[in-house]
C-alpha cells in the first residue's frame, strides 16, 4: 500500500522518486512517480524531473 508523496524506488528502472498521483480504475492502480534525480529521460514524461506511470509491484518503499 503506497500513499501520495511516499519516496519509492522504481525497481525496473532503478530510479528513486516521489509518488505524485494515484489513480484506481477497474481494480487496477496506476501510481505516478516523479524522479528525484534531475535529468530528462526518454522513457519518462516531462522535463528535468521525468514522471513514470508504475504498478505497485514495480515499487519499493524507501
Amino acid at each position, binding site marked *: 500500500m503506497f500513499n501520495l*508523496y511516499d519516496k519509492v524506488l522504481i525497481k525496473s528502472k532503478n530510479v528513486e522518486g516521489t509518488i*505524485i498521483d494515484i*489513480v484506481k*480504475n*477497474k*481494480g487496477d492502480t*496506476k501510481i505516478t512517480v516523479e524522479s528525484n534525480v534531475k535529468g530528462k529521460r526518454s522513457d519518462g514524461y516531462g522535463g528535468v524531473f521525468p514522471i513514470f506511470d508504475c504498478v505497485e509491484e514495480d515499487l519499493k518503499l524507501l
Partner: protein
Amino acid sequence: MTFDEWLDGLEETADGKLAFKAKKTVDKTDKSDIIKLSEKFEIPPDKIKKFLLSPGAKHADEFFDVGYKESDYERLFDDIESKFDTSKLTDVKKNSDGTEDFSIFMDLGITSKKRFRTVWRKDAPNGKPRLITGHRED
C-alpha cells in the same frame, strides 16, 4: 450531463454489448478539504500544502526562492490560475487508459519571477485537469 459526456461513459464489453465504464477514482487522501475552486482546473489543497510548499519537500525550495511562504497556498493557487492558459499546452500525452497528461510553463513568484513547468492530468476527455506536480525548469 451532456449526451457526449453520457456517451463517453459507455464502453463495449467482450460480448459486444454496451455497458457503463467502471468509474476511475483518484486517491482521496489528497482531496479532503478543497477550499479554492477554479472553473479551469482542480488543485487539491494538499498538493500545495503537503508537496509544493511543504518545507523539506523536493520542490519547496524552488517556490520559496521566488518568495512564496509555507502559508501562501491561496496566493500560489491564484497565481497558477492567472497563468493557466490552454493555448500554451506542451508535451501533450494521451495514455492508453484514457487519461491525458500535459504541461504548461508559467512564470511564478512574488519577489521574483521564474519559469516553472506545471504538469496536469485529465482523467477523462471532458474532465477538469488536475495539477500533479510543478517545478522550476528553464
